[in-house]
């Protein structure tokens, strides 16, 4: 009797808890034990999973040559569709000095700075991808530049050269990179690039308007001072 109780107690207090708690928890390099490995870790190839058959074991592949991703929800055959088809087709002006000059006039922005949606979306992407160097205000004073970590300081958009730069040239630079700036086509499709440029043009227009306003008030104040 006493012996039986001892066995039960031993099982209850030592063996059962030991079994339940002996599985190793995740820490450091060890992801932890699991009941069901083939349910927890997908048998199907998840995004970026290793693939034994493919080159470099990469399951992430380049799109098939000459295919074009379609972004948008315009109905086929409508005017909206032809616009979004044009935006989905690849950018064809080559990355050469001649291409750079050609881009100034050949590229046309489908959006205007009056288009609120374009400006807002442009700001959203600008703040993510551009502001880190070019600054949220577009003055070339991004966090990474003012902290001194990044040595190639970008110009202010409000320099006369950039105020005069056409949207087509900007589009070319964003697509292929320019000087220290690398291409941003990986992050922004053509439509989004145009929206970002629309936002930059809006910043410049606001700046020009502010300049004009101060220029106008300055002679006025001078005139009133003279009158006194």
């Amino acid at each position, binding site marked *: 009797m006493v012996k039986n109780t001892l066995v039960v107690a031993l099982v209850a207090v030592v063996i059962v808890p030991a079994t339940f708690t002996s599985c190793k928890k995740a820490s450091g390099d060890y992801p932890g034990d699991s009941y069901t490995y083939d349910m927890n870790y997908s048998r199907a190839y998840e995004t970026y999973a290793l693939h034994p058959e493919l080159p470099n074991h990469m399951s992430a592949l380049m799109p098939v040559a000459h295919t074009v991703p379609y972004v948008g929800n315009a109905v086929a055959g409508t005017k909206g569709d032809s616009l979004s088809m044009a935006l989905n087709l690849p950018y064809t002006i080559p990355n050469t000095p001649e291409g750079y000059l050609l881009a100034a006039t050949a590229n046309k922005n489908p959006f205007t700075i009056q288009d609120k949606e374009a400006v807002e979306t442009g700001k959203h992407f600008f703040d993510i991808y551009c502001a*880190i160097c070019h600054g949220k205000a577009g003055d070339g004073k991004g966090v990474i530049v003012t902290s001194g970590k990044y*040595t190639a300081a970008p110009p202010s958009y409000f320099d006369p050269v950039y105020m005069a730069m056409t949207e087509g040239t900007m589009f070319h630079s964003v697509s292929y990179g320019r000087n220290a700036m690398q291409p941003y086509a990986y992050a922004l499709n053509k439509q989004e690039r145009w929206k970002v440029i629309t936002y930059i043009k809006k910043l410049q227009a606001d700046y020009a308007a502010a300049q004009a306003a101060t220029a106008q008030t300055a002679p006025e104040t001078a005139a009133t001072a003279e009158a006194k």
Partner: protein
Amino acid sequence: MQLKNQTTFRRLLTGLFFFAFVTTVNTAFAGEAEGKELFQSKCQRCHLIDKKMTGPALQGVRERWTDSTNLYAWIKNSQSFLATGDKYANALYKEYGSVMPAFPELTDANIADILVYIDAEAARKAAPPVDTAAGPVEAKKDNTQLYWILIIALAIIAMIMSRAVKYLNVMVHQKYDDPAPDQTPWFRQRRFRPLVGLIGILLLCWLSVSMWNSATSLGRQQGYAPEQPILYSHKVHAGINQIDCKYCHVGAERGKAAVIPSLSVCMNCHYNIQGVSGTDPNYPKAVYDKEIAKIYSYIGFNPSTLKYESEPKPIEWVKIHNLPDHVYFNHAQHVKVGGIECQTCHGQIQEMDVVQQQENLSMGWCINCHRNSNVNFTTNDFYKPYAVLHEKLKNGEIENVKAVDIGATECQKCHY
């Protein structure tokens, strides 16, 4: 009164000294500050002092251009100077293959200032660097095992000692013919029964809780913090440098996977940043410069010629946050539509040098959030089709719409 005068005098004297010092320093580097500002706004886009970038390294530029008037003309308008047929200029154009923009706004004095700054900076870079690099970071030692061994050894010693004390006691009693004391151990004694019961119940509770925790944590990976092929710190990039998460994880707003950034994303900055520039002792240059060099070896980039020379090969990053095969999770739905911060699920990523899975990612954890979170119902057009709920909101029948109200706890939303 006299004392006060003395201090005033002393102050005046120090002020004078300071003024003299500042003026001498200023005259010694005349134009350097102006040159620095001009260099940063005009030249730095393409030129570094000690390294090639889009254009050549600028140290020793004065020695390379034997005629300074030519150099000034080149800076002001490189294209018209090229047309004069200068040999060195044409060789430069051929080597770099890009046209330097014209700077008609720069005066001769401006250019002189820039050159002064270039010389000063080159001299500073040539000086032997101060050895700030600390030794390799020592791994934190884990002493838990040692402590357990010590505790067990001490417990055994304590047991042996208490036995010895007991026997000695018995022997003492025998020697003096005293009646032997009560030998019943304390936990069998009647008066300790409630205490023994209480300890038993507490032990049982503790065992059940730890069993439950341990059994449910299986397969959840909470606390997983694997070593990655590159010692990449989210704290440096997302925390200190304030780079937006979506700058690299471009998929977070657009699709199911947040996307592991491709090597070209690293090169957006590391094309230019080829070594640790800060002096933070937590990130010693000796260690982290090698980590940056790893990017170049993976992508096949030669940092001295700034060219992609060899075949790139992929980095095998270790996946940390893993959901079971039978769960569907979509980043865009949460980040773009729901407007949820990355930190809600991934913890304070911007403070982690090594990323660790903070949440357990269990189903209960998902469901809790789906029950308690308000949906941006009125501001987001995604939710337009829910006509009945919009009606109720308008009538004031409900105050807000939770995720659960639009089916966020239905099985087939995530399991199918």
